[in-house]
């Protein structure tokens, strides 16, 4: 429910409860607001989704995607101040009850909005100050309730069917609503914001004595990828190609040294240049430079072509900054090059281990992506060389948005450069061991 707020002003409210319901119809795709409308007789069981939200909001307009700032209570993450979809600051902990309610206040000065919370309505704590661009003099303000679909990652497999979502809804109970400033237009208007499936037919807001009960489902949040999201990351355009390139680079790197052993050429090489460490270093530089050049060329061509194709097919590509795009291109190419050097080093250690090399590089990634359950996959992607795939992740996982943040959907457990550093550490260790063994062993 909302009203127009002209110029500066404030809105204050007390929240006494946040209750939720889970749809009991299991299975199928991620549930949306639409499934409520299509199946109004669906059964509900009481349970509060952790990121269901109810609170107060000041928003440029009631159109989805417009700028906003909001103070809210959540299912199990305490009081939060959120703005413009990705901003999130924690306030008071705990859930609101009649005995221990939560007071929320938003104050607007021009484009700046300050959020406060309080446990008693007298002593207020500032949670955050945000500046919104595109907030016109007359904004919309009011009470809201949202409840994202409950998502369960059940298992992962290359043939899909990895998660199940059920629709949820929540109801926030508000009273002591007080307004400051100019609020033209008389009554509160109830509205479904951003419902793509038409009116849900649910009772969205009711007056209870001097207070209100506001119900909702869905979420006010950024679009994410995966089963619960509609977006596609840019690295999707290059993932099959860059993975094929990693396999090829691994084979190439391994062959670069094992072929010399097989044909006995290594003896000639080491006779001609007796400083063995230098031979290994030269080999690493050559194979690294060659694969890096090939990788950058390939990915710089593949990314725009792949993105154009994805857009043609109607995918919504999640926007990223130019810097991030550059990091994805350079990172994917660097991943190919370092994988080749790692394969070279392991090949030098095992000498005939071309096979083992490919397995070292390829299998951990394959398993994590296609077959392992989420928890195990996360560990594989933290400690094995496959961690480096994180360098290709272009959008962050938002802790305040419920989604399937699993490797299968392009969300990795390590930060991009940390993941890449894990691969580099393995490579340095393998090169050191290779150099040591090269000196110690007869060729």
């Amino acid at each position: 429910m909302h009203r127009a707020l002209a110029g500066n002003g404030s809105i204050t409210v007390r929240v006494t409860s946040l209750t939720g319901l889970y749809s009991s119809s299991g299975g199928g795709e991620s549930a949306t607001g639409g499934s409520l409308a299509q199946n109004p007789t669906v059964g509900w069981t009481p349970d509060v989704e952790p990121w269901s939200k109810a609170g107060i909001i000041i928003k440029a307009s009631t159109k989805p995607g417009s700028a906003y700032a909001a103070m809210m209570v959540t299912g199990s993450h305490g009081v939060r101040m959120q703005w413009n979809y990705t901003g999130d600051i924690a306030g008071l902990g705990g859930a609101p009850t009649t005995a221990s309610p939560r007071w929320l206040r938003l104050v607007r000065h021009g484009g700046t909005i300050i959020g406060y919370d309080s446990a008693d309505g007298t002593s207020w704590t500032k949670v955050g100050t945000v500046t919104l661009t595109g907030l016109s003099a007359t904004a919309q303000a009011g009470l809201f309730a949202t409840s994202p679909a409950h998502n369960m990652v059940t298992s992962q497999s290359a043939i899909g069917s990895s998660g199940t979502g059920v629709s949820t809804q929540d109801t926030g109970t508000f009273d002591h609503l007080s307004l400051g400033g100019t609020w033209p237009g008389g009554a509160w208007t109830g509205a479904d914001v951003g419902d793509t499936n038409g009116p849900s037919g649910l009772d969205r807001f009711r007056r209870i004595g001097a207070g209100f009960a506001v119900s909702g489902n869905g979420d006010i949040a950024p679009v994410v990828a995966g089963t619960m999201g509609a977006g596609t990351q840019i690295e999707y355009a290059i993932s099959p190609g860059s993975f094929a390139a990693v396999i090829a680079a691994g084979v190439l790197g391994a062959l670069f040294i094992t072929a010399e052993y097989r044909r006995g050429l290594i003896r000639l090489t080491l006779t001609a240049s007796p400083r063995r460490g230098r031979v290994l270093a030269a080999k690493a530089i050559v194979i690294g430079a060659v694969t890096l050049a090939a990788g950058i060329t390939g990915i710089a061509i593949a990314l725009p072509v792949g993105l154009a194709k994805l857009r043609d097919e109607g995918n919504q590509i999640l926007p990223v900054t130019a810097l991030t795009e550059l990091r994805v291109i350079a990172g994917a190419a660097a991943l190919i090059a370092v994988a080749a050097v790692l394969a070279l080093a392991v090949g030098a250690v095992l000498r005939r281990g071309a096979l083992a090399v490919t397995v070292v590089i390829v299998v951990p990634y394959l398993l994590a992506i296609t077959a392992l359950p989420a928890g195990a996959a996360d560990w594989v992607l933290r400690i094995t060389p496959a961690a480096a795939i994180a360098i290709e992740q272009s959008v962050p996982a938002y802790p305040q948005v419920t989604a399937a943040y699993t490797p299968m959907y392009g969300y990795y457990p390590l930060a991009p450069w940390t993941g890449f550093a894990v691969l580099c550490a393995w490579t340095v260790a393998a090169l050191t061991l290779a150099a040591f063994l090269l000196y110690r062993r007869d060729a």
Partner: protein
Amino acid sequence: MSRTLHAEWTKLRTAGGTGWLRLAVVVLTAAVGAATAASVTCHVAGGCGQDPAELSLTGVYLGQAVVAIIAVLAISGEYGAEMIRLTFAAMPRRFSVLAAKAAVVTGLVLVAGTVASAGSVLAGQLILPGHGLAGPPLSLGNGADLRAALGSVLYLALIGLLALGVATTVRNSAAAIGIVLGLLFLFPLLTATVSAGAWRRHLEQIAPMTAGLDVQATANIRALPLTPWQGLGVLAAWATGTLLLAGLTLQLRDA
């Protein structure tokens, strides 16, 4: 032929690492299956549409990589050590040598695969109850579950033949395993980026791993792009194709 078979069996049996690799097929397949079964959750009354047989047999994803290594080593080890010339000098009928290799690799994988599959099903039977899955429990007395378990064994054997065919054709072990793993795992990645429904379905129908593993499905079979046995048939076609190519190159090429 029996002497050729005997010779190949002796080579495979005594090659370094075969014993460990056989053990790895069993242990890794069953362990991944058990871990997957243990991680399954479903909080919705009436089940989440999960497939108990497929979940328990998830380890085949890893097991097949080890099977591919066994098969690749069976031939490229000979090329690496140049023993292949001795082999062909002793047994000039090259097609027979390939057939004998295929037979011993298949026999070895069938045995290891049966133990691995049985272990996975047993783990699933022990772990899955209590995880909120609806439907009848996993049981080999059930036709679909039995088909999934036996199909997984055949799947592993066919992966072995596919890998043998590729390795015989390209000779080098690193290149061979690269091609085999690429064939198996690149198709699903490629499929994920194709959003056009018809193309996606076609890719799923021709991909050796995706189609072959249809044989594990016991739930939602109508939604599959192929029936379970048809899926395994696609993998069999891949294996036959690569083996024929291998036979052809063996006949035409110097060793």
